[in-house]
């Protein structure tokens, strides 16, 4: 994930397509995206409420700033979730 940001370090963010994972919350209530294998964990910008939280996400399209992940859309077992369902 850091490679494109390192190649052009002035870049503000990069679009990413993430593999299977889900959104979790820590004790402080902050939301994180966590890969299904548990190897990668990325902090989310803002809160993740509604349908997105806890749902198995087959694929997730997002923008990674190097600091926070902003989810654009996610594909679940049931349907595709757009921004309106995520916010």
């Amino acid at each position, binding site marked *: 994930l850091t*490679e494109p940001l390192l190649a052009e370090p*002035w870049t503000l963010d*990069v*679009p990413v*397509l993430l*593999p299977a994972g889900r959104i979790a919350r820590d004790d402080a209530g902050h939301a994180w995206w966590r890969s299904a294998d548990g190897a990668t964990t990325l902090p989310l910008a803002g809160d993740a409420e509604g349908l997105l939280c806890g749902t198995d996400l087959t*694929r997730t399209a997002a923008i990674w700033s190097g600091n926070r992940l902003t989810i*654009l859309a996610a594909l679940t077992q049931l*349907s*595709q979730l757009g921004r309106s369902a995520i916010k």
Partner: protein
Amino acid sequence: LHWDNSVAIELKAIEQLAADQSSLKAAAGLAKPAKWSGVGASRDGALLWGECAGSGANPYRVMADLRDLGNKCTCPSRKFPCKHVLGLLWLNAEAIVPFAPADTPAWVSDWLGRRRTGGGAPKTASPDAPAASKDARAAQLAEPEALEDPKEVARREAAAAKRSEGTERAISDALDALEQWIGDQLRMGLSAFIDDATARCRRIAARLVDGKAAALAGRIDELPGRILALPAGDRPRGAVVELGKLVLLARAFRAAPRDADTRRAVATSESRETVLADPHTLQVNASWEVLAEQVPDTARRAGVGDDLAAQSRPGRSALRDAARFFPGQRRTARVGVCAVRTVFGRTGLLSVATAAARVAGSAGGSGGCGCAGVAGGGASARRGLDRAAAC
């Protein structure tokens, strides 16, 4: 600022604004009514404009905003501000000619519009643009080159080279001003910068617009929003990261001013035609699915959203309607991708076309509106995303 809300400038401020003593001396020579025409001011006196006779056939158009001392002149001088701007301010400060309140001329409004939007708004193609560009190409084909006067061609090329040189100098000066500004912010303290980020960023963004670094100006105009979106505890670190990235970008541009990526980030984006004509552009013919649309704040303020909405009015052609993106939409198109970022290598290489994609063919184009999409060909969203994963 006067009690009656009118704005005025004093000679002392002009002295401080001048780049050097010779600029002031030259400005004094221009502070004579005979040199000027079309002098006017806005109702509150904050905006001044006038046309100053120069060595060329056409007078230079000079304008200034007394609220932040932003200014612009059409002369080729590399000094900022030039003697014409100082001369205009001098005329006003000493009341040498009356600045009658008048309607703002279009050329002043254009400049103001660019300053207000930070200059970073992507240029949307006007509804008539495709037809106009086709006509221009057709005209070029129709006109045999032999009819071109070689002297005229040489004169035009020399003028273009001079303009280009002037642009490079202006950008370089603007980047100098930016680095100095960043140093000032750090010296004065991050806490004060975060508290006053909007006003401070707007001032330097206006300076960058004047210095032809429009894309950078747009980015700085949106910087306060990005910092304030962070939790309070993260803002100092966020500010340092943002300012540090600006320094890196300025230095990268200086090291390679012709590099397309840095130029896009500092000056302006290429036109759709330029991107598609570039042999190095990766052109992808595929079925694309729009996952989300992001319109930068600068573009939103410039009315890009309104423009797109207007394009979808009944009676418009299908081609123009197709220029509008919406999530979930799928369409087959040839896309020239300016930047493909390869990400998440551990699970297979995934490529996502970024905001800079220029759409060609039947799909029309957003002219730079942020649009994240993935290439795919499936009949369902699932298959679309799976295909993207296989790219």
